[in-house]
Every structure is written in C-alpha cells, then in structure tokens.
C-alpha cells in the first residue's frame, strides 16, 4: 500500500481498523492523572506540603479510632465526675492506679481492642507510605503535585510490596536486637566474676546498644528499598507483579553505592535525633500541662499535634532524600 496521499487507492482496498490508543501511546499532556517521574534533583518534601498534611490527617483519624475504646471506658468511669477525667491524671496517681489496677474486666478488653487497631493501622498505613513516596517523586502536567486520589491509588497498588518490606525489616531488626540483647546478657554473666557486675553490665549494655544501631542501619537500607519500589513503579509503568516489584526494589536498594548509603544514613541520623528531641518536648509539655483540664488540655493537644506533624514532616523529608539517592 502506498503512503502517498496523492495516489488514489483502489475502491476495494481494506481500511485499517480504528482502535483507541493505549495510555503508553498517549502523550503525557493528554493524560492529566498519570504521575510523571520528577527529576531526582527536583524531589523535595517542601514541594509537597499537602501530602504531609494528608498523611497527618489520615493518621490522626486512625489514632482517634485506636484511642476510642480507652476514651470510651474512661468516659464511662470518670465522665460523670464534676472535674471530668482531670482527676485521673492528677499528681500522685491515685485515681490512675485505681483505674488501671481495678477489677473491671473491661480494661483488658479495651486494651486488647486498641492494640489490635494499632496493628491493623500499622499494616494498612503502608498505603500511605507508598502514596507519600509516589507523591514526593512525581508530578502532573504544569509541575503540579498529583492529586490525592491518584496518590492513594498508587499507594494501594504498592501496598503489598511495602507491607512485605515492613515485615522483613521488622523481622530483621527484631532479630538483630534479640541477638544483641542475648549476647549482651551472656557477656554480662560471663564477665561478672572477672570484672564485677557494673563493668560487666556496661559491656553487655554496649553490645545490646550496638545491635540496636545495627538494626537502625539495616532500617536505612529498607528505606532505600521502599524508595526504589516507588521509583520503579513510576518510572517503569509496565504491569509488574507485586513480587517482581519487591524483588526489583531489594536489588536496586542493594546496588546503591557505599557513599550513597552513608549519605542516606546521614540524612536519617539528624532527622531521627530531631524526632527524639520533639518527643522530649512532648514529655515536658505533658509534665507542665497534663491533667489540668480546661484550656490546658487544648494547649497540650495543640503542642502534641504540632509535634506529630513535625515528625511526619521529618519523615517525608527523609523519604525525599532516599528517592533522590535511588533516583
């Protein structure tokens, strides 16, 4: 068949079938919802404040759910006190001890429910991990952040590999910590006759602390794996299975050079320190404002929520760095 438009075709020449173009064939400007990978140097959490706020909002809702059974129980027992539950948190702890040590069987049920909700929340929140990573590392036309529903959809797609990483990372971390504590205890016992228990304890504690450090170091590697999984999902849009994405992520994380790994470690270290410092601020705020009721509760809530947002922002900032490293 001739491609020339000026040569008429025979009347019985069959016409090619009309088919819709696939998403891959459509130029990006025509697909408003598909995330486009950002250049690695452009990835920054400061560009995605709404993503941080969205993560915070969703986690707040889930935290309220986790707290609901405990709150309902406290309300049932102390809600009719003229001072409300402020008396529960008053200095001395008499009411608190009575409540926790009470013979009310509902306490056990309440705590188990909250713990179960926490575990479910931790697993389900891997959707947020994927969504946040994708949001940080992509854009839509006009250099705008992708929509929340797009990010969540991507997060759902990545939930399974992200959850697998969480499980593997937790297992490795706990195994390292367990081995370190076990080794520490063994050294503690073995060294007492020769060095006395104070020195033996320091050695044992040091070993356990070192194992905690190792667990944190491997955690950084798993963060790189998460970033790699999210990055690959946006760069390579081919329909891969969760298992292959997972495997690909592990491989890509392992290929990160030593220099880049230590760069990630540096980024993690100061942010982790800042995060702990925020917890310390929360502790001080609780000491100053806790149990007073009235405006003090509102002030404490504001301070605590600012701390939570701050920690999420630190985490998002760290994710952005890991995306840059694997990108």
């Amino acid at each position, binding site marked *: 068949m001739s491609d020339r438009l000026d040569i008429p075709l025979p009347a019985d020449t069959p016409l090619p079938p009309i088919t819709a173009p696939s998403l891959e064939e459509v130029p990006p400007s025509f697909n408003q919802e598909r995330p486009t990978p950002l250049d690695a140097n452009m990835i920054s959490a400061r560009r995605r404040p709404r993503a941080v706020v969205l*993560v915070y909002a969703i*986690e*707040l809702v*889930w*935290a*309220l759910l*986790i*707290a609901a059974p*405990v*709150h309902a129980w*406290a309300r049932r027992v*102390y809600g*009719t*006190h*003229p*001072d*409300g*539950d*402020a008396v*529960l*948190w008053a*200095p*001395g*702890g*008499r009411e*608190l001890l*009575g409540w926790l*040590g009470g*013979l009310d069987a509902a306490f056990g049920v309440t705590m188990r429910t909250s713990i179960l909700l*926490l575990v479910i*929340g*931790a697993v389900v*929140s*891997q959707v947020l991990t994927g969504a946040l990573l994708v949001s940080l590392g992509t854009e839509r036309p006009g250099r705008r952040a992708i929509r929340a529903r797009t990010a969540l959809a991507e997060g759902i797609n990545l939930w399974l590999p992200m959850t697998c990483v*969480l499980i593997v990372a*937790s297992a490795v971390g706990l195994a390292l910590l367990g081995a370190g504590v076990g080794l520490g205890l063994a050294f503690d016992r073995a060294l*007492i006759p020769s060095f*006395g*228990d*104070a*020195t033996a*304890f*320091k050695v044992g504690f040091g070993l356990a602390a070192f194992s905690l450090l190792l667990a944190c170091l491997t955690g950084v590697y798993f963060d790189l794996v998460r970033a790699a999984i999210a990055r690959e999902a946006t760069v390579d849009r081919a329909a891969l299975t969760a298992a292959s994405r997972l495997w690909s992520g592990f491989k890509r994380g392992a290929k990160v050079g030593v220099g880049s790994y230590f760069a990630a470690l540096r980024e993690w270290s100061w942010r982790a320190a800042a995060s702990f410092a925020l*917890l310390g601020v*929360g*502790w001080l*705020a*609780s*000491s100053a404002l*806790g*149990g007073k*009721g009235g405006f003090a*509760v509102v002030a404490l*809530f504001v301070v*605590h929520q600012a701390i*939570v947002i701050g*920690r*999420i922002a630190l*985490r998002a900032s760290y*994710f952005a760095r890991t995306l840059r490293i694997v990108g």
Partner: protein
Amino acid sequence: MRRWLGAVALLSLAAVPFTEAAADGSAPTPATDVMTPMAEHADKVVGYTLRATLDPVSHTVHGEGTVSWKNVSEKPVSELWFHLYLNAFKNQRSVFMREPVGGFRGTTIPKDWGTIDLRKLTLDGIDLMPKVELRRPSDEDETDARVPLPREVAPGETITLEMTWDDKLPTVVERTGYDGSFHMVAQWFPKIAKIEKDGTFAHFPFHHLGEFYADYGTYDVTLDVPHDYVIGATGPKVASKKTEGGRLVERHVQDDVHDFAWTAWNQWRKRKETIDGVDVTILYPPNYDDIAERELETMRFALPHYGDRYGKYPYGVLTLVHPPSTSPEAGGMEYPTLITTGGGSWTPRGVHTIEMVTIHEFGHQYFYGLLASNEVKWPFLDEGLNSYAESEAMPHWKGAGSGLDLLGLTVGVAETHGERARHVVHDDKIAQPAYTFGSGTGYGSLVYSRTAAIVETLRRVYGDDKLRRTMRTYARRFRFKHPTPDDLIATFREVMGEAVATTLRTALFDKGWIDYAITHASSHPVHTAAGIFDLDGKRETVPEDKRARAGSHSGWVLVARRGTLALPVEIELIAEDGTKTRVPWDGDGDSMRVPYKGSSPLHGAIVDPDGKVLLDQDRSNDFTTLAGRSTKGAPNTWERATYWAEILLGGLSP
C-alpha cells in the same frame, strides 16, 4: 506542680512545732507532746562476746565465745531456747523449706546448703550438749533448740555460757550466705530466744515468712578474715590489726542492740561521711560510685527526718551494704546499725528504687531495731509501720512523684500502697503471725501495704500533726521496750481518741474496710407551697401548677458508708454556677442525706474530694453529676490516648 508540692511539704515540715493542725482543733494532751520521755539505753539481758573466723574458700565460719544471760522474767527458768537459724538451709525437711509459700523472697533452693553445728555448750563447767534437743518429736527442723539447764536460774540472776560452733554458709538465700568471695553473714550464731515476763520463751522455728525477735544486750564480736577482705559489721570498729598469718582481725562492740550481722568481701569499695552526727559508712561493689552517692544522699535526708519523727538515732555508726547484683537476696534487709540495700548500677536517677529501698531499710532501725516488736507474731508492727514511715518520708523529699515521675505521670508511694491494699482487703487479717498467711503475696500486700494505707488514711483524715504526734509518742515511749499491738492502739487512743483507736483495731484485727458511695442525688427549683390555706379569714386553694417560684433551688445527696470502718469525710456539693460547698460527715450511721440549697441547681457531688480516705474500696462511686447536667467527659484521656496512638503508629508508618 511538683515544685509547689515540695515547697508546701517543706513548709509543713518547718512549721510542725508551732502549729495546732489537729482535725478537730483540740489542744494536744500534755503527756503526748514532743518531749515524751525516751529511754537512753535498753535493759541489758544478753552479752555476747564472740570470735568468728571466716574461711572464704570453704565458706565456713568457726565461732566461739561466751554469752551472759539474765533472767529478767518473774519466774525461775530451768531451760533455754536457742535459735539456730542457719539450719533452715540444711535440707528440704526444715520448716523454712517445707512451708509452701509463693510470691515472696527466699523461694529458691540454695545451690549449696547451709548449717550451724553447735559443738560445745557449757554452764559453770557443766557440759550441756548431751541434753540439747535440736528437734521436736516428729519434726526434722533443727532451727529451734531446747537446752535444759542443770539448775534453775532465779529471776534477776545472770548466768554465763561458753559455746563453740561451726557455720557452713549456704549460697545466698533469704538474706544470708555467700556468692564467690562475697559473704553476708547473718543469723550465724546460736542466739538465745527472748524471755518474756511470765518466764516463757518466744521460741519458734525459722519460718519462711516472718523474721526475728530477741532481747537487747551487748555484742562484742571479733572478726577474723583474710587480710585482703573488707569488713562491714554491726557497731563501731574498736580495734583492728593485720596478723602475720595474713589475716585481718577487727573487733566491733555495740550496746543496746538485739542482733549482730556482718559482711566480708575482697571487692568492697568504701566511703565514709558524718551525717547528723552519725558516722555513716557505705560498702559497695566496684563502679557503683553513682549508686553509693545516691544512697548517701538518701541518708542526708533520712537521718534528720526520721530523727524528728521518731526520735534521734541513738547509735554512733551506721553501715550501708550494697550487695553485688549477683546476690540480690542479700539485699533489702536490716540489722542493728547495718542495712543492706540493692538495685542495679544502671538504675536511672528518675527511678527512685535505690532511694526507696535505702530509706525503707533505714526506717527499720526504728521499728525493728529500737522498738524491736515480735516480728514473727506481729509482723505489721515492723514492716507495716515502716512502710508507712517510708511513704510519709518520700513525698517530703521527692514530691508527688515519690514513686515514679516519668513521661508526665507522677505516682506516689502512698498511692501505690493504697492500690495494693484494695485488692486484699477481704483475704485475711493483718494482725496475725507471719507464718499463718496463706501466701507471700498476701503477706506483702496486707502486712506492708495495707498497714501503711491504714495509717496514711488516719493521717490524712485526722491531720498530719496529730498523727505525727502519735507516732512520735509511740516511738519514743516504747524505745527498747518491745511493744505489742495493744501498746500501739493505746497510744492512738491517748493522742487521737477512742474513735481512732477503734478504727485502727478493726482495720488491723477484723479485716476492716470502707467504701463511701453516692447513691442518689436530686435537685429541683423551689416553689411556694400548694394546697388549701386559711389567711385573714379567707380560704384559698393554690393548685400545684399555679405555685410561684421562689427563685432558689433545693436538693439532696445521699451518701452511703459501706463496710466496717467509720471515718469522717467531707461531701462537696457543686452548683451549676460553680459554687462549691463542703459538708462534713463524721461517718456515723450507714448513710447521710446531705441537703442542698442554692440560687442555682445542684450540678454534682463528690465524697472525699481531697482523696483522704486512701482505704476507700471503690473510688468510681464517690462522685456523680446529676442527670441532664452537662458532664466534662474525658478530654485528658482522649488527648493522651490519641497522642500516644499517633506516636506508636508513627513508629511503623510514615
């Protein structure tokens, strides 16, 4: 908040001699002021002059010496009873090992057993050994030996016996024994049982639950150990020398005590300090310098504080022994002028376990050492009152968070005792012999915590000043005198009145308990009366729906008192406009209807708003908000639970 509480506590302490803070405003009884006479010395019944030689390789102690004993009873006696406590660890047939007690110390079987073997016992040259009865018929326990005497000992007569014995120390169990080269040598010599006024002896086998009881006297003990060992012992060191045979020989002498314990280890570190006129020595393992400093800090507070509360500590020395962490069973114990503490070298400063055990064991110097009641028959007189003393002292030093101050939560020692006490109120009596308790857990909760909670409740309800005077009177009056529960209750009666004494007796002897509860509350607007009225010769009928409002509100709250104890309490009525009114109730009767009148409706009520009745069995029924009124809910719990949930969730998610 804590700084304010500490300041208030300090101010209260400073103001004690000048205030009349009694709950009912009455003046103190003249005989019970702070100058209650206090014995300077004990009546001397025994005099031990002993020499002990330690072999740290075989963990044996060879002992020899004399004991003089005075018959201070009203009857002639023809026998003596000796405690041979170490035989409790001889085998599993001893009373100690046989008693099925769980939940307390000393439950482990020693890896190496212990014994005390009496080799020689003579009186006036007559050998008493052939007649010594180590056991009772059909019982293999050998801790309670009867020694028939060749003649009667008349009242007031003193005899002197010579004795020789050998100890084999067990691995550390129930406060005594060895661990490597560490030796804690307690209950190590044949000890004469206490003679009572009626000529009987307070003798008993060594029970698993229950401690000791003996007469006062003088202990002059020479200790012979390897030269590289450091010794800590009862009483001051009056002589010391190193012999050519590579031994260290130290002599310790102490009057007015009823026991003697010592320790020897080649790893001890030592610090000395004079605190409130007392030479305090602390022995501690290597690298425990921080812990040693904390324990000395505790003594800097405790010596003057307890001196003010219970009379000046009369001895010139005090030795603190912090055992190595591999021997925790050697810790947490008291002997005259020597206490053993405990706690890991890693214990952070915000966790007050080091301070609490130190202050608790020091407090025993008073209740165990200077009052010396029968710990086997009436354990609460020592452990219970001492637990109260510790829970009273700690807040003065550490504030509201005397037990725990962490993550914004403060928990007090007294509150911890109160909570523990609630769970065992119906299980058993407090005032009974130690070995009759069904379990170690019950023993601990009742004897320690419930007794402390009872006395603390009396303090809060009747006033700190009155309780302080009562305890001071008791401690001063009965110093060196082996008081009984009747003496304690009589002192309470004298200072605080018959009602308090009755409450105390019921609580200690009859499983006394109390639970205040608000059962009903009501509030309604006040109207003029309805009905038929004859006024100025005219009859008028006022129907109910035509009554005028008087512009005020009326109501009532019904408070029930459940249980066998009666304690004065306040009921706080809270009006809608925020006005609070407190109404006292002396606790008489099963219930009290508290009337309310005010310009706004009654909103709610609280019984015991200040939480004075620590014994209240159920605090959740102590308050109410009337139906239809707005409640404050649980915003604090909601806020904290949400925050903690967010933090935990944040550990696993972004």
